[in-house]
């Protein structure tokens, strides 16, 4: 081996070793950028002196912010409303999308294509914000939680996603059950549903996120402050500084605590359910 070749080889080796380190450093920086704002908010939510200078650790540890939210009726009612809307909406959404998807996998059914077209057309054209608002007005649903739950519960995209999941169930299984005398409804809850638990988890989580994070619908249809959900309340608190006066607790502490409470439910379940979330995205885009 000549001298030059050795030098070249050494250079190559060095290059290969440097890249993974740089890569890891890059990802450490990215993770840091993502976690820093969240960490800062967590710190400030426990800091009774939030809002005075740069601190990455609570200077005067206090749970006063959380205490204020838990004890103050104007702050915990929105949280309960959020919980109610999320639970009711997810249940209704799952009910409708599983039913619809189950009907759409009946390939022999006359008019199946027509029903599918009826659903798909809503993905192409929509009436828009104002006509929908006027419909709600005509139905006397303004300032009623039904106006927030019902339109989001029939999510055609999720229904189609559910159908994609259901298509993975072998048709022969359904036929066998039908031949054995199983009624369509029994097939539905004895075969289809037990076989698609992963799909139910995946789409149920999508519905739950959608309802928990819902802000637009509340902003349009709900004007009474006692029916606001937590997102609306949070926005009022942070953007318009609409924080109840709570004595020695800094308003900033309460605001930060409210942000943490708004993300807490999903931060708790997210690490356990990550694969279901990811599965939903992949099925939505990759499979027919």
């Amino acid at each position, binding site marked *: 081996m000549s001298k030059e070749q050795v030098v070249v080889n050494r250079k190559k080796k060095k290059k290969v070793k440097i890249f993974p380190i740089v890569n890891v450093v890059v990802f450490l920086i990215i993770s840091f950028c993502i976690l820093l704002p969240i960490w800062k908010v967590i710190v400030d939510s426990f800091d009774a002196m939030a809002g005075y200078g740069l601190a990455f650790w609570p200077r005067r540890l206090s749970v006063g912010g959380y205490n204020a939210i838990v004890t103050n009726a104007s702050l915990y009612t929105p949280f309960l409303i959020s919980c109610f809307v999320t639970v009711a909406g997810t249940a209704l959404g799952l009910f409708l999308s599983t039913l619809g998807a189950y*009907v759409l996998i009946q390939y022999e059914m006359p008019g199946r294509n027509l029903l599918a077209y009826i659903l798909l057309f809503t993905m192409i054209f929509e009436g828009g914000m104002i006509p929908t608002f006027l419909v709600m007005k005509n139905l006397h649903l303004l300032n009623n939680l039904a106006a927030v739950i019902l339109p989001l519960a029939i999510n055609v995209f999720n229904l189609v996603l559910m159908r994609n999941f259901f298509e993975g169930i072998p048709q022969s299984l359904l036929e066998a059950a039908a031949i054995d005398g199983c009624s369509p409804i029994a097939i539905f809850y004895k075969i289809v549903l037990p076989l698609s638990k992963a799909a139910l988890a995946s789409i149920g989580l999508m519905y739950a996120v959608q309802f928990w994070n819902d802000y637009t619908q509340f902003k349009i249809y709900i004007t009474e402050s006692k029916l606001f959900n937590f997102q609306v309340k949070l926005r009022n608190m942070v953007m318009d500084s609409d924080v109840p006066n709570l004595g020695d607790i800094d308003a900033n502490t309460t605001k930060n605590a409210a942000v943490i409470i708004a993300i807490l439910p999903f931060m708790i379940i997210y690490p356990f359910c990550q694969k279901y979330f990811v599965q939903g995205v992949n099925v939505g885009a990759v499979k027919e």
Partner: protein
Amino acid sequence: MKMQCKSCHTELAKHAKVCPKCGAKVKKEAYKNTKVMAIFGVCLTFLGGLLPFVQDVDPTNNVAKIKTDSIEIAYSFMNIQQPIYWYLFMLALVVSIILIAIKKEKISIISTAVAAVIFGVAFFASPYLEYTTSKKPFILHNLTDLLADPQVYAIGLGVYVIVIGVIIAIAGCFFDILKHFKKEIKVDPRYLSNSLNKNVWAKMRNFRWFYLMFLPVLIMVLLFNYWPMLGVRFAFTDYKIANPYYVGIKHFVGMATKDVFFWNAFRNTIILSVTKLILNTGAAVIISLLLNEISNLTFKKTVQTIVYLPHFMSWVVVASLFRLILSPDASGLVSSLFVKFNFFATFNDVPFFLGSTKYWTGTFFVINVWKDTGWGTILFLATLSGISPELYEAAQIDGANRWSRMKFITIPALMNTIITVFILNLAKVMKIFESVFVLKNDAVDPVANVIQTYIYDKTFRAGQVNYGYTTAVGLFNSLIGVVLVLGCDYASKKVRGRGIV
């Protein structure tokens, strides 16, 4: 899909004209565009029903006025005495579209003709109401009587559009009929499967429970998706608090010619949406390429968990979070850092990044990248994990370094997914709302107002609300959305062989 001979089910070559086994001629699926033409015609007729049939005349040149203010008196289906005409007209047209979509073009001619007849009856025979803003608005007119006075009234746009639309719709179907006159390949019924021969009604009886199960879904969709579509007619009316009355296309003309805020919002929508799309996709591609190079699985999983995290926060939470760390006083993280490292002397010099027109757009993009990039990597990572490792090994043996492996293997494999993601998101460009809505304030309206927020502000925050005008803006937005969705669907079919809807 493999082509098959219809009479003997032999597989055929792609461009075969005659079946090699039985000698029957192979028919290609032709005249596909005529279907599109028929649907286009029906849609045109539909639109014509919304436009004015008779309107007042511009005295200078004796033609129907299209100027903004002058369309004070216009007559259309909307101010007919029995509004049932409009519903019937529309129903007939919807039936036409469905019939064309399920390839029953011949029957669709009948329903289109029915729609034309309804229009004729409405035009010649039925009295029209003139609405005024006052409480007792009802003055009856006959359109034919009105037209007897050509100095004041002329035939409006709607009539022409309907006539042209009906002609195109029927002509489109007729061209499709031509193929029925050509020689058909006769298929022996014995070769058809049993289920196809069964009576449709008997089959429907078999599936009666499924129809019942679909009923709740159907009711919800009709109530919350299709009923609002009917509300689109308010775009052609003045609708203050109650009593909408017909004004023709006044709002659209006004929107296009006089409303500078609307055009500003339109420009912002395009700029914000498209730039966001490009930045997010680009960042997601880069991050997934880098993430793919990490060999330590635990580290990779942890990083994935962290970068997916912001996606689950609502826009309100993200906005609140950034509002708190960007606040221009001692409590804000960013301003504290700036002051500490002497970028700015005091807190008074630090700009509020969400409150000044100069910085808002940039901040918006940064926040978007922060929130959605991680989530965007999911699809790319799925594609990357599908690339065969043998390709990389072979390349390595051939002496390819990391860069050329990426250039010649990874990027080409990823290209299809990139285009797919791009197309999927391009269809949603006009729908941008919540992200802007929670991040903007009145101070940054010139750079931040998008069409949806403009509609919201003009309806729910303005003193004098005109639902008609905001519906018109919304309809314009929806129509661009439709064009985008259909265009992206077409592009998607070309690129990856299946549509997005």
